[in-house]
């Protein structure tokens, strides 16, 4: 049966953008296989409310599992659930490569003895082979990879932002299934969750990202970056590795080869020199703006627009201009 199974990520009771991206990618892949797109929607009671949105983004079937033990990220319960469903016969399993998806997808592949493609930015199916692009070597080399399998489904994780969520006038059939095993009996138990400010936009989802580097000179000066992000109204705050290594910002804010890879519409780099490590994480942004006092900084080579100047003068001026613009709109 050439159907595609996708995982729709729910976090904090909310359907994430990457869930819609995964759904639309599953739709496109199912169309090339001549099959259906089925999405696993699992979470605390209430998760079923998101089934409609998945239908509107291309799902034929939404498989709903509600259980209080699925409220936090529960990789063992999700692996059991997805693998159990997959055994009924699927050609491919798609998982969005969020921090959770990067953990979940290889578990599912290991459980199903399935070959896997990780963090792909394009995906096609031709003549029995899955063909995907995977950025490697700090984003400086793009590998075209082929997966051919007959004995198990292909497990493929999708880079956040690389696949568009496409709305379409459809509605999905909803199936309700019970959790597989006891979600509360996971061998790895979450004892404490610290959530970031829930008003804060996630780096993977924000259309605009304002990032700060060492050029800000001290952790308290990050408020310049935060104020600019607030002025945009739809921006998340990122940081370089130097800054997260020094503890100015949490590691989860790090954008770069060893941190998060992001593709926002607009990326504003404040006091960032542009080390290769950093550029690997943001080079796929649609538009890049750099503000740095050193005209020779490598960030200017990748920036669409650069301002050479003191971040302590330029950034407040930009914040004021964006505020004024939005006040008029």
């Amino acid at each position, binding site marked *: 049966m050439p159907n595609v199974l996708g995982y729709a990520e729910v*976090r904090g009771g909310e359907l994430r953008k990457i869930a819609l991206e995964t759904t639309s990618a599953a739709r496109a892949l199912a169309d090339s296989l001549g099959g259906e797109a089925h999405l696993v929607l699992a979470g605390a009671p209430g998760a079923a409310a998101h089934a409609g949105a998945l239908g509107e983004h291309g799902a034929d079937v939404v498989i709903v599992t509600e259980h209080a033990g699925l409220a*936090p990220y529960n*990789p063992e319960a999700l692996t059991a659930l997805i693998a159990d469903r997959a055994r009924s016969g699927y050609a491919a399993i798609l998982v969005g490569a969020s921090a959770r998806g*990067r953990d979940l997808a*290889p*578990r599912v*592949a*290991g459980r199903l003895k399935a*070959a*896997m493609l*990780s*963090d792909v930015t394009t995906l096609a199916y031709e003549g029995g082979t899955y063909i995907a692009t*995977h950025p*490697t*070597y700090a*984003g*400086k*080399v793009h*590998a*075209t990879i*082929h*997966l051919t399998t007959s004995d198990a489904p292909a497990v493929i994780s999708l880079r956040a932002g690389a696949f568009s969520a496409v709305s379409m006038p459809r509605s999905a059939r909803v199936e309700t299934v019970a959790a597989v095993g006891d979600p509360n009996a996971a*061998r*790895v*138990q*979450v*004892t*404490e969750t*610290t*959530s*970031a400010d829930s008003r804060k936009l996630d*780096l993977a989802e924000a259309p*605009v990202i304002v990032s700060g580097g060492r050029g800000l000179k001290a952790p308290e000066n990050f408020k310049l970056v935060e104020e600019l992000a607030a002025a945009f109204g739809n921006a998340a705050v990122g940081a370089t590795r130097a800054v997260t*290594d020094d503890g100015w910002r*949490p*590691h*989860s804010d*790090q954008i770069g080869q*060893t*941190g998060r890879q992001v593709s926002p*519409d607009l990326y504003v780099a404040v006091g960032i020199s542009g080390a*290769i*490590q950093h550029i*690997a994480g943001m*080079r796929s942004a*649609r*538009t*890049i703006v750099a503000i740095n006092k050193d005209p020779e900084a490598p960030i200017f*080579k990748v*920036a*669409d*627009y*650069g301002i*050479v*100047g003191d971040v302590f*003068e*330029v950034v*407040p001026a930009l914040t004021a*201009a*964006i505020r004024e613009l939005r006040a008029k709109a």
Partner: protein
Amino acid sequence: MKIAVCIKRVPEMDVKFRIAASGRAIDESGLKWDMSDFDGYAVEAAIQMIEKLGTGDVVVISLGPDAVQEVLRKALSMGATRAIHLKAGDVPFDSFSIAAALAAELKDGGFDLIMFGKMAIDTAAGAVGVMTGEMLDLPTVHACSKLDIANGRGTARRELEGGAEQVTFALPAVVTIDEGIARPRYPSLKGIMAAKKKPLETRPAQLGAVRVSVAAMALPPERSGGRIVGEGAAAVPELVRLLQTEAKVL
């Protein structure tokens, strides 16, 4: 306490890569190689655990051609006890077959803790560690930024989108290591001398069927950046105009 750390030899990233004549790999000539960053953090964290306990073994394992023995020797010179080289002509681009080969080696090793870097910085797939944990059917925690082991149990911190979580699990277990745990030490001269006498075993990697292959490698198009709008705060109005009318992002 017996700890295994799986490490990968990778090229330095701070270079302009060229594509090999085959069109399916990078041109490796002239590249410098080292242990992958995250694997270095894992080796350091493992050695620190053993040092704190005053007893135990750190076994480092690497899969690939003979050249991977360089990074195994480096880990031994940092303080690992012994090394295992799983010999393969090339490292396949297939996370599953690598994980299967590692799981086959680790299965009966009697390890209390099996550690990986959260990803290799060259291929950046980040799948092998977790997949190996699944194959071994052990509690598995991905991307730990803190890790404590005591009384047969582990506690770890993971950073996720929108927050962090603290988890607890029983040993034996598999963990992959994120930044923030430990900065790898530089091998001392004494360590380098001692490493020469430490055991390094070699056996063939049991990769099984390889189902993923590289059809092509290519350099992505360069961004056509480099346009300086102006200097200082005076350039802000022009930047805003360009963002509105040209880039159309405002």
